[in-house]
């Protein structure tokens, strides 16, 4: 588009892990002043390619050229020194340091050997101002800011080093619409300054909004490089999942389910005035058997906090929970599990995975935990369960002994889902089950939710994507400002209606 020589050129890259071939003969080019989207399903190799470029992984074969120079990165510092900056999905700054300390960490201006704090402050102010972040106090703790602002501060850090290449890995997955707009403003500004930007996102609309060019990967192989304006959404998707358009249409309509459940009879779970100091207050919800209760609301509105109270991950200090009509105190996850409640956390890595253990060990963990350590699930039963769920949820690679850390996000999520499904819960709480997951896996999970509900399971479905909530839920509880503000029956409601409720606050 602009220059003829790409800023970054990766040729014939291959990387493998035990039992998994992550990348195989992939080529990739990134030009100055463009936003380049890297597209593909989970497990397609996007994260691996990025990690190869950032020096987290050392490539097994192939060449990486940055600004015409061949590089062999063996550590992130080498990649950074070459002018490549990365902002990850989970912001990797130091939350316990201040904004200015983070922006200039390791590069503080000095005066006679000591850090020149005045210089630090003024330099940080300059950089923040460039990104229209004047309202951020450089002396405030990083952790006092929202994820969105933290992400922008991470970008500020890369601006400060004058990065030639900026990699944004799922930067928008925890941002609301306004924050996304702000981020895109910053991205465009940087692009116009000539920074080459590599953008990874599962949100198709965002990719079309921001990117100039895209590279599509599938199963660790290159599908092709396209100009965004030349590639329709449908053909992009078919390239990503390698299926024909007709199969896609099928995927699209499949999750729509018949909603015939009425909210009568004893609910499986009911709360009255449930709350926890400093967290959420006065929550009344009820979920009936076979019902999907959607939970909508902005990030930070209190959805996760409510889920954690129901599961006993945090202790409620007011109100009560009734299960099948009788009152129960749920003081720990264990107590919730004993009441047949299961909870898939939104934070896979921190709250879900046992990274160094195998798919098998992870999959049977909850079941084993409830049986106690003395009664080990017999190997054969484990094999059967694991094989069953690997097939049912299409977990790839289909290898029970693969270390779960090496799986892609979507497949990790499926293993965690399976961990709970094998315990046959009566209430399944899913907190952002499809975040950071590709369309194929997303549809699979949505379908699964509908099927589970049809079989009589109660599901609490929490998601930031209103379309998704509307598609799977029977009723929708709207959470705002740490309380439930409305409940909507999902019959012919549109996304706009729900947004109006969130915006208006009351029904």
């Amino acid at each position, binding site marked *: 588009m602009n220059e003829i020589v790409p800023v970054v050129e990766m040729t014939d890259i*291959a990387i493998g892990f035990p*039992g998994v071939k992550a990348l195989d003969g992939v080529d990739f080019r990134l030009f100055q002043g463009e936003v380049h989207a890297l597209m593909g399903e989970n497990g397609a190799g996007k994260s691996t390619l990025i990690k190869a470029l950032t020096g987290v992984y050392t490539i097994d*074969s192939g060449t990486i050229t940055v600004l015409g120079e061949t590089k062999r990165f063996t550590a992130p510092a080498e990649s950074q020194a070459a002018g490549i900056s990365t902002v990850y999905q989970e912001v990797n700054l130091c939350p316990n340091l201040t904004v200015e300390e983070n922006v200039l960490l390791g590069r503080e201006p000095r005066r006679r050997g000591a850090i020149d704090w005045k210089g630090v402050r003024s330099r940080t102010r300059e950089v923040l101002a460039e990104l229209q972040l004047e309202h951020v106090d450089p002396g405030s703790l990083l952790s006092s800011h929202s994820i969105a602002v933290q992400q922008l501060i991470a970008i500020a850090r890369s601006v400060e080093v004058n990065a030639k290449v900026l990699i944004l890995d799922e930067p928008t997955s925890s941002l609301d619409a306004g924050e996304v707009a702000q981020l895109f403003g910053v991205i465009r500004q940087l692009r116009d300054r000539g920074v080459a930007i590599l953008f990874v996102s599962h949100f198709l609309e965002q990719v079309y909004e921001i990117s100039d060019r895209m590279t599509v990967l599938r199963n660790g192989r290159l599908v092709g490089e396209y100009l965004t304006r030349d590639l329709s959404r449908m053909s992009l998707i078919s390239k990503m999942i390698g299926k024909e358009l007709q199969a896609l249409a099928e995927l699209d309509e499949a999750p729509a389910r018949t909603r015939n459940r009425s909210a009568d009879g004893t609910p499986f779970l009911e709360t009255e005035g449930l709350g926890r100091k400093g967290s959420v207050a006065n929550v009344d919800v009820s979920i009936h058997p076979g019902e999907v209760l959607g939970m909508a609301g902005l990030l930070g509105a209190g959805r996760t906090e409510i889920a954690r109270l129901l599961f006993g991950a945090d202790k409620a200090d007011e109100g009560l929970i009734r299960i099948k009509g009788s009152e129960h105190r749920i003081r720990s996850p264990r107590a919730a599990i004993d009441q047949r409640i299961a909870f898939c956390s939104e934070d896979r890595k921190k709250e879900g995975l046992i990274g160094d253990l195998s798919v098998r060990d992870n999959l049977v*963990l909850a079941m084993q*935990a*409830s*049986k106690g*350590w003395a009664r080990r699930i017999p190997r054969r039963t484990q094999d059967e369960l694991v094989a069953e769920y690997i097939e049912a949820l299409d977990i790839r690679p289909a290898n029970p002994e693969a270390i779960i850390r090496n799986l892609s996000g979507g497949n990790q999520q499926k293993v965690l889902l399976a961990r709970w499904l094998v315990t046959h819960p009566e209430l399944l709480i899913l907190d952002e089950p499809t975040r950071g997951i590709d369309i194929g896996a997303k549809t699979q999970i949505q379908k699964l939710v509908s099927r589970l509900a049809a079989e009589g399971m109660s599901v609490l479905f929490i998601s930031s994507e209103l379309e998704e909530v509307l598609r799977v839920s029977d009723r929708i509880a709207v959470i705002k400002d740490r309380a439930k503000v409305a409940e909507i029956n999902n019959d012919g409601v549109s996304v706009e209606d729900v947004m109006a409720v969130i915006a208006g606050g009351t029904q």
Partner: protein
Amino acid sequence: MTSHQPAKPGNPLKAIFAHRLAWPVIALAALLLLNQLFRPDFLALRMQDGHLYGSLIDIMRNGAPTILIALGMTLVIATRGIDLSVGAVVAIAGAASCAYIAASPEPGSPATALTAVLIAVVAGLAVGAWNGFLVATIGVQPIIATLVLMTAGRGIAQLITGGQIISVSNDNYKAIGAGYLFTLPVSILVTAAIFVLAAVLTRRTALGTLIEAVGINPVASRLAGLRSRNIVWIVYVFSAVCAAFAGLMISSNVTAADANNAGLYIEMDAILAVVIGGTSLAGGRYTLTGTVVGAFIIQTLTTTVYTLGIPPEVTLVFKALVVITVCLLQAPKARKVFARLKATARPAAMEPAKEKVAL
């Protein structure tokens, strides 16, 4: 016990080197061979009066207390913990049992010896329960929680012995540390039995996996419904009981309880054995077999120092060098460096590297 590395066809040598126990075992074998070179009868075993004798037996017997304590330490470390109190438990166990024997009306009878053993084990249980209580229930950091008894424990032992070294004469008691059974020293048999017990207890049940889960990700384990508190209790109690047995061995071997010096700094050797054996101090995946190999390496080192006639002032430095080498060989970073050196040494190595990932 299960192999997590898929077999790599065509290159068995590589598979052996990739095994997590490879370097500890190689180091141990190298040390033993080194000794054999300097003393041709080093590896020889001979039978005398129905007892086996030889340097190997000596290494195993002298290493028994360290192995025992290191086994307990392995499980504690796997849960992200550490147990510094084991040396003090050695002293307490020895003090309690010897004090009991010395004060009993029949200081020579088998029943007295048995009761003394029980007292030591109960003392271990109590200490372990206390450590577990501090770590699991109160949530004190393991290093602080066990530091309490590391220092206070020796005080307790001194109180029990009244500040004296208590000597006892009871043949049954003496057998624990110095006796023979089926041609082998009793201490070796006891250690082997506890090793087998620990292996069966953790790998035939789900305990081992759950210990690893707690060690790798405590938050996720709790959310999966794991009662990590119980798991943590179990490992501290097991560690203290192992230390109590070690205390029995040590005091029985010299038929005396020395509250000041019994098991002094043994926690360091035990932690070292765990690390050399390949279990990370960060918690998670552990290997009991590796720990035993690690403890053997430490003990063999001591023997080697004598065999080679290394001057005493160089001894500790020599030990340190060997330990550092073994630890370095196992570090992922060092392995990466080796791989890179190999790759740069012969660029053609790219092709086999590619094959490796094709699995």
